[in-house]
Every structure is written in structure tokens, then in C-alpha cells.
């Protein structure tokens, strides 16, 4: 049906992650793209399409392409948006190659999210978008504040606890200890978590992802062509985006259900699998709560049970559903979604080193679950059987 297994990820590439890259987002983009092409065994001359997303914080494809010396661009995507569209970029690239519009798409995200453009606007004015006029004057505009509001609503409705959120932060750090790329590699305990300072109650510092400078890129091409390249292809089995509500618009009042609940049935149907088939899940973790709500909304546990499920150890590397095996945005670094996809690829290739989930064949990778801007996006990836 549809896009299933018609396109593949043939290469991934990273720049180092840091708090001050010292270079432009253009340079970051180029470095990540060149690394991804090298991984795929391709060259710049093979590229005919570029895709990214940004919120006024990065370099667009029509600047990157000539800077790289791409001979001719047959398709590009300059998607507006933040984390919620991170996986839609890959999905649209899959559509482009499946329809023959493009042959080799480099998808990238390049940000200096610590040294230049900080989400939530420390030092800058709030972005004048949508319904911010009813919120910003009251000191409510930064993502940690918005996700804190949703977290509190979940606590009120389901009795979710700080300790349950803490298990997510502690568990992901344990994974990052095994990831040489991770910015945070010192183990933390639940006591460390509970002692970390408030950012916006009920969220603490250790509930928040790492503002990061860095870039990551992914090469998307047809499944057929990918089989002739340097590394075994990872097939894009499911790619969906959408939803329809923007929780923080001021309409919609129930913050305890994310847009992931709306797109999950379409995602699983496209890939022909269910939650029980997922071997590893890289769930968008701008904050601990976004992991918790997606455990519910992608069907890994009952609604309201995300806290107990996370605290049970089920999501650890040796549990039934390893989650955020690289440490996630909380501990590896935050490149706005695409580093989740790259980690899923590593797990399916069996190249994730000390953090490898043995026998991983099907992976879920997800975007910000729809609290900021409408909708979300997600991919199901699998090995080429």
C-alpha cells in the first residue's frame, strides 16, 4: 500500500554535537551531508534533491545546493516547522523518489541551537505566531512551559508522578553512557533527577533536552537503487504525517492525548505491522513527558499507563521495547528529530556498538507529538529481508 518499502535510507552522517560549533549552519549542513554521502558510497554529483525543515534558524536547500556544488536540483523541500515535521521531511523525500521526481535526496537538519538561535527565545522576543497573543504577555511562550502544562494535565488525570518521569531521564542517560557521540555520558540516578532544579514545574532541568549545535543528514533513494550501494538499505516501510489539532493554539483543552494517537493507525497500516512488532523505538524526547505520552499513543501500553510502563524498565536496552537507545535528545543531543532516524538506521544495520539491540529488524522513529504546531510525523523503518 502506498509508500511501503519503495524508498530506503542509504546513508547517514553527523557533525560533532557541541554547545558552540563555531561555524555557520551552512557549514554544519555541508559537513553532515558529505558524511552521509560517504556512508552511502555516493558523491555530490549523485545528488539531485535536498530537503530540510526550519523555523528561521537554518540554511535553506537553495543555499546549500550551490555551496555544495550540486550539478542540478530536480526537487527540493524547505519545510516550515520544528520537531513535529522532522519525520515528514523524510516521508516527503520517500514520495519524491517513489514517484521518480527525484533520484537521490539528501535530507538534513543543521542548527546552532545553543550558540545562536535558542528555542523558547532566551534573550529574544517571543515569535509573533498564531495565538501567542493570548499567552506570551503572561510569561507563557517557551517549549518547557508548554510541555510542563501538558505534563501537569497528565498528572491530574492519571496520577503520573515525578519519579516516573525521572525513570525516563535516568534510563536514557544509561544508554548515552554507551554512545560515544553523546554530549552527556555521566550516569545519573533518580535522586540526581529529583534534585535537579525546576525549569517550569512540574518539569525539571533533567526533563529537558540539550540545546545543541550540530547537524545530521540522511540519504534517501529508491529501495531498488539502495540495494546496489555501499551499505545494506534500511527500508522506509511507513511514513505518515498529519493530525489536525494544535494543542497550544488556545482551542482544544485535553493535553493528555497527543497527535500521535491520530496518526498511529495510519502508520501501522502503511507498514503492515503493529506495536508488538516494533523492536526498537526512538521517540521524540524534547522533554521526558513527550516520551511518556507517545508510549501510550503509539499503543505500547494503555492510555494513562505511560508512567508505570516507563518506570517498569520495559524501555531499557534489555527490555521488551528499548527506547531512545542513543540517549535521545535528553542525553545525546538535540538535532530536532533527525538524529532519532539516524540512530534507528544504526540499530537496524547492527552497527550501534555497545548499545545495539540484538536482532532489531523493525524500528519506529517519531517526531514531536503535535503539541506545538498542528500534527506530528513518524517513520517505521525495517531491514531489507
Amino acid at each position, binding site marked *: 500500500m502506498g509508500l511501503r518499502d519503495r524508498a530506503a535510507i542509504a546513508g547517514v552522517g553527523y557533525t560533532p554535537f557541541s554547545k558552540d560549533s563555531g561555524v555557520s549552519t551552512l557549514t554544519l549542513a555541508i559537513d553532515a551531508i558529505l558524511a552521509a554521502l560517504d556512508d552511502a558510497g555516493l558523491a555530490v554529483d549523485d545528488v539531485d534533491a535536498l530537503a530540510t525543515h526550519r523555523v528561521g534558524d537554518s540554511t535553506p536547500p537553495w543555499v546549500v545546493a550551490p555551496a555544495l556544488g550540486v550539478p542540478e536540483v530536480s526537487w527540493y523541500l524547505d519545510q516550515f516547522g520544528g520537531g513535529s515535521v522532522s519525520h515528514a521531511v523524510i516521508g516527503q523525500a520517500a514520495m519524491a523518489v517513489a514517484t521518480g521526481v527525484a533520484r537521490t535526496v539528501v535530507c538534513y537538519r543543521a542548527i546552532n541551537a545553543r550558540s545562536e538561535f535558542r528555542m523558547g527565545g532566551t534573550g529574544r522576543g517571543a515569535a509573533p505566531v498564531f495565538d501567542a497573543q*493570548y499567552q506570551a*504577555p*503572561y*510569561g507563557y511562550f517557551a517549549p518547557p512551559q508548554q510541555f510542563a*502544562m*501538558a505534563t*501537569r*494535565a497528565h498528572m491530574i488525570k492519571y496520577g503520573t508522578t515525578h519519579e516516573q518521569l525521572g525513570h525516563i531521564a535516568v534510563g536514557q542517560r544509561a544508554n548515552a553512557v554507551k554512545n560515544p557521540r553523546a554530549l552527556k555520558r555521566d550516569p545519573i540516578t533518580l535522586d540526581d533527577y529529583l534534585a535537579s532544579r525546576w525549569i517550569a514545574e512540574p518539569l525539571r532541568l533533567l526533563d529537558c533536552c540539550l540545546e545543541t549545535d550540530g547537524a545530521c543528514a540522511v540519504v534517501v533513494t529508491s529501495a531498488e537503487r539502495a540495494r546496489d550501494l555501499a551499505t545494506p538499505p534500511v527500508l522506509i516501510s511507513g511514513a505518515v504525517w498529519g493530525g489536525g489539532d494544535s494543542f497550544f493554539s488556545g482551542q482544544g483543552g485535553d493535553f493528555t492525548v497527543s497527535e500521535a494517537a491520530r496518526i498511529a493507525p495510519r502508520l501501522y497500516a502503511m507498514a503492515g505491522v503493529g506495536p508488538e512488532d516494533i523492536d526498537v523505538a526512538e521517540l521524540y524526547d524534547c522533554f521526558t513527558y513527550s516520551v511518556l505520552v507517545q508510549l501510550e499513543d503509539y499503543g505500547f501500553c494503555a492510555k494513562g499507563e505511560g508512567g508505570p510502563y516507563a518506570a517498569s524498565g520495559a524501555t531499557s536496552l534489555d527490555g521488551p521495547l528499548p527506547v531512545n537507545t542513543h540517549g535521545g535528545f535528553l542525553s545525546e543531543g538535540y538535532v530536532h528529530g533527525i538524529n532519532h532516524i539516524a540512530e534507528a538506521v544504526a540499530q537496524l544495520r547492527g552497527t550501534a556498538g555497545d548499545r545495539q539491540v540484538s536482532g532489531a529488524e523493525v524500528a519506529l522513529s517519531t517526531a514531536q507529538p503535535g503539541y506545538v504546531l498542528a500534527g506530528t510525523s513518524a517513520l517505521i523503518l525495517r531491514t531489507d529481508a
Partner: protein
Amino acid sequence: MSLAERPRPQVDRDSVPWWEAVRRHELLVQKCGGCGTLRFPPRAICGRCRARESGWVPIEGTGRVASWIVCHQVFMRAFADEVPYAVLHVRLDDAEDLFMYGDLTEGDPAEVTAGMPVEAVFTDVDEDLTLVRWRPR
């Protein structure tokens, strides 16, 4: 630090009448001319019946705390002297699906509870701007 240094609302073509009413210390929402649904934030069309006709109606200005946060981190200098402060997501008493945000005034952020009754307070910031805040009722 004064309220005047907070970010100003970016008023749009749909919300001008709402902010003008707040200036007069009136809390209004739209009422759809087609299906009668009360609507906030202001929109030119009803999302339920798509009717374009609507009127402005006064509401009680009371509600209950649906969710809330207590901000400690200073994300913007205007709030440096206000932390910790509470921001409330208020479910209005006038309709099931009507919500407004606002900061808590005349109350202790540490004592906010789920379902706490609150009422709107109009705070005149300067000659051009009035904000709607919330206090325990």
C-alpha cells in the same frame, strides 16, 4: 520590572474587537450565528458548522484551573523579578470547551490546585493595553 516590559500581544484582524473589549474591562467570546457554539480565540468562521455569522457575547469571567505551571527559569528579562510565577490554563464556566491562559495574580503559586475556582482580573498596563489575569475565587 513593570508589566509594560512584558511582550505585547500581536493583535491580528480577528482579535481586534476582543482586545478592545478587554480595554473596556469586558470579557467577551464569539457566539456562532449558525450553531450557537461559544468560541475563543476569535476566528472569522465556526470550525463546527462553518457559519461566518457570529456575535460577541459577555461571559462570566469565572472558571476552574484545568492545568498550571510554576515558572522558575527566566526565559525573558521582563519576567526576571516575577519568578516563580504561575500560569494557569483555565476552563471557563460558560462552556465545556472554552479555555483561556493567564498568569495568577493575588495568589500563591505554591497553592494552586487542579480544579481551583478562579476569576478574571483586568490589569491596565498602560494607555494602550489591558491584560486579563486570574485570581483565586
